[in-house]
């Protein structure tokens, strides 16, 4: 049975699935676990280069190969970057210890992973999404990466491969695992979370955060529950999410799969599933050969980590202004809400500095944001004089330039560096005076009496459509020089005038 399900946002923030057969409304609950490689020069516990794409087994030594007798020594910069990230995520930095997670796997040289278990370095923070949602961060701990298996023979994939080849270049590369709380309710929100986290990773210099190169890896814990149910449902962990697109699709698919089962009265089995991008579905992982029992215990080859209050304070003092804060600052300056797309996009595109400067120079906030969001490429924007942007907005508001003209002038400003006034003059963009415009509109009305009378008598919905007809004509005749707002105002006054 396949249910016919519809998406329906409720309260503007929840993403729900409504079953057409039962009418039940289901809520998606997502928690994300992100592993990101830290941007250090060397590995976590040895002096081998932390480098992507080198010849196999070149960046190795006794320590990261786990050779008998070798011992780990913790990289100072790993702690620094992990704490920077932790503080950027509003975590508290705690005294921490490393533990061994014991399991056999050929890409893991010691057959245990050194990770932080019951005493992680960063705990209990949060991350604010551009849509205003606050997603809790349970922990962000340090651990080591594994090597890389290449499957050979057979299908070339792990299933059915005849054998595998192991490269340990990546073994021992430092990772931070960021465990988010299940506060995400929407596939788009999950993508937003990753985008936001990536921006923070880049801003703090903690990681280059490239999902395509595997330096940022996302696992999604997905469950569903009936809206209003306080209990969380059984979750499945989705792996192999190699892009934001996969992340969104996988959550969407998985949630529907779970609703399907639950509506049929079948319980969800807590399991690991893999996203198959080609087939557009999740599949169960292969069951483990033996029961999981990681036998965690404190790593006796390392000593506890207790960053001093001074170290943490120095990290706080050096933190850059983070995306959420930048949105707040820009929104306040522009006099708009922090979740507005102009604000979000300006920050995401790194143009919030320009927007702030233009507003500071007297540019009206909303119009400045419109240009930054829609009319400005990131390339070249850095050469733009904020004063010129403010002036451009001023000309627009004074009715000297139409929106269309302003866009053209802006493009010219970027390429020539000239002032908007000079460019407008050069391009012959002079404001039509209003009597000229009124005469033009009256002539157009006279040319189309049938359309005009329908426009006058139409209901609201139809009126909007017919208005477009007249605005279009005016724009055509004026060759785009007419100000759209002025045109609608005149049309409105004519329509309301007694016949």
């Amino acid at each position: 049975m396949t249910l016919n399900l519809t998406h329906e946002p409720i309260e503007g923030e929840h993403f729900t699935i409504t079953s057409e057969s039962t009418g039940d409304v289901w809520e998606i609950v997502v928690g994300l676990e992100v592993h990101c490689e830290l941007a250090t020069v060397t590995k976590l516990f040895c002096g081998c280069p932390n480098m992507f794409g080198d010849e196999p087994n070149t960046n190795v030594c006794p320590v990261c190969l786990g050779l008998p007798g070798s011992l780990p020594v913790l990289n100072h910069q790993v702690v620094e970057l992990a704490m920077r990230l932790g503080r950027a995520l509003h975590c508290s930095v705690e005294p921490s210890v490393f533990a061994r997670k014991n399991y056999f796997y050929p890409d893991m040289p010691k057959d245990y992973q050194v990770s932080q278990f019951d005493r992680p370095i960063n705990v209990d923070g949060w991350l604010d999404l551009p849509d205003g949602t606050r997603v809790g961060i349970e922990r962000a701990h340090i651990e080591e990466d594994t090597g890389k298996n290449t499957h050979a023979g057979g299908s070339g994939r792990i299933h059915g491969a005849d054998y595998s080849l192991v490269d340990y270049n990546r073994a021992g590369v430092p990772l931070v695992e960021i465990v988010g709380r299940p506060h995400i309710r929407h596939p788009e929100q999950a993508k937003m979370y990753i985008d936001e986290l990536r921006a923070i990773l880049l801003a703090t210099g903690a990681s280059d955060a490239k999902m395509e190169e595997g330096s940022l890896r996302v696992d999604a814990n997905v469950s569903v529950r009936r809206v209003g149910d306080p209990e969380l449902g059984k979750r499945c962990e989705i792996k192999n999410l190699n892009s934001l697109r996969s992340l969104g699709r996988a959550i969407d698919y998985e949630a529907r799969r779970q609703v399907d089962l639950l509506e049929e009265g079948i319980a969800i089995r807590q399991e690991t599933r893999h996203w198959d991008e080609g087939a557009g579905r999740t599949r169960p992982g292969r069951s483990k050969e033996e029961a999981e029992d990681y036998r965690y215990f404190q790593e006796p080859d390392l000593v506890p980590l207790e960053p001093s209050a001074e170290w943490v304070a120095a990290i706080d003092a050096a933190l850059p202004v983070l995306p959420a804060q930048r949105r707040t600052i820009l929104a306040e300056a522009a006099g708009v809400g922090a979740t507005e797309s102009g604000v979000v996009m300006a920050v995401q595109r790194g143009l919030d500095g320009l927007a702030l400067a233009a507003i500071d120079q007297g540019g009206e906030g909303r119009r400045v944001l419109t240009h930054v969001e829609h009319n400005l490429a990131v390339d070249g924007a850095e050469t733009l004089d904020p004063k010129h942007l403010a002036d451009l907005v001023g000309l627009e508001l004074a009715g000297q330039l139409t929106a269309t003209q302003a866009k053209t002038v802006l493009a010219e400003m970027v390429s020539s560096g000239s002032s908007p006034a000079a460019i407008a003059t050069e391009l012959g963009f002079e404001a039509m005076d209003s009597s000229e415009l009124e005469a033009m509109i009256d002539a157009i009305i006279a040319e189309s009496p049938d359309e005009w009378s329908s426009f006058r008598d139409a209901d609201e919905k139809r009126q909007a459509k017919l208005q477009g007809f007249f605005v279009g004509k005016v724009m055509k005749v004026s060759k785009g020089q007419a100000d759209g707002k002025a045109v609608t105002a005149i049309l409105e006054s004519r329509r309301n005038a007694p016949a």
Partner: protein
Amino acid sequence: MASIPTTAIEIAAAVRSGELSAREVLESHLDAIAAREPEINAFNLVLADEARAAATTIDERVAAGEDPGVLAGVPLALKDNLCTHGIPTTCSSRILEGWRPPYDATVVQRVAAAGAIAIGKTNLDEFAMGSSTENSAFGPTRNPRDISRVPGGSSGGSAAAVAAGFAPISLGSDTGGSIRQPAALCGVVGVKPTYGMVSRYGLVAFASSLDQIGPFSTTVADSALLLEAIAGHDPRDSTSIDSAAPSLLDVLDQGVAGLRIGLVTELMGEGIAPDVAARVRQAAEALAAAGAEIGEVSIPALSYGLSAYYLIAPAEASSNLARYDGVRYGMRVDAATTAEMNAKTRTAGFGEEVKRRIMLGTYALSAGYYDAYYGKALKVRTLIVRDFETAYKDFDLLLTPTSPTTAFRFGEKTSDPLSMYLNDICTIPTNLAGHPAMSVPFGAGSDGMPVGVQLMAPALCEPTMFRAAAVLEHAAPPLEEAFQ
């Protein structure tokens, strides 16, 4: 040929002065090996060629007016769990047979830098798990004093090599007594330094929080010399103490006048052979005669030491030995899948005792048992540390037997692991606490076999410990003197 002195100090002095060549010193020791090694089996590998080349280099340096170092030309045996670059390092295990490490252990570098000549890799209980060297994949080592008896373990090869005159000094590792107990059973000096004093980098791990490398020698002074050479901070070992090596040779003649030395009640009664206990009392009298104040001290938590140790050490070992999986080095038994290959390799490659401890440790750490066993053992460790702290408020040093008995015969304890484990009862507590301890020969038992007495000291108090050891060495009855 001039007669070759028996101690490292004398040999180094003669080689440095040009009185003796390193090469002739070496040849005399290689002759000794040729004569008795077949019956003793102290070595997994004798490095005759490498040693000759190294000795020649030392001689050339002396001839050129250089000083090759405090161990110039001294033959030295290395326990075969110390990594030697390009030279097989087996841990007496089939699973590592033929493995040539691509690097040297820090101690191996340090003794070479001090001019010592590595003469061979010595036999041990597989992965240092045992108290008799019977658990070696390459056959047991025999006690040079009586080849029907064990040399102790796990560093049985290193102890026997020194006792048999194959080398004046050797290095071993001590996790629960693996230096001190074979030293006692073979009648030589053996030292377990403070945890963190000697770098563990390149020591194949058994139980990381307990393992410590230390010297064997025929004299207390030679152990002092070797320990000074290998001690000191190593940035490659996170658990290495960040301080300079202690001065030991300089304090050896300072005596024990005024030192307070405690006999540990719990380690003088039940389970300790009467002849061994008698020797310990005799040692206490000797210390008293030299001016020490002797008292008795009770350390109640010691009664839990053995249990705690046999949970903690196997737990760490179960994890440390996971890496022997047939993927990167050592033995592989092929199979259709990696998991099967891992299991078949480990099953064929590890001996019984190693399997026993891996399983014991896996059990102690596994879900549902962690709190009752491993977790409890860590807390007992705290109790032991606290009890030692209390004892050391009243005493500078503690005196105990090293081993409950003298050297036992082959096969006597192999069928009952627990009876073998009970051998470690006197030596384990200092490993749990991280404190230094050493065994000094002190006459023979009723069977004519050597008895060792153990000195224990607070962390970093090796100098005091060595002062008392020197007094005991001086006062020790000759081995040939019958036990009364």
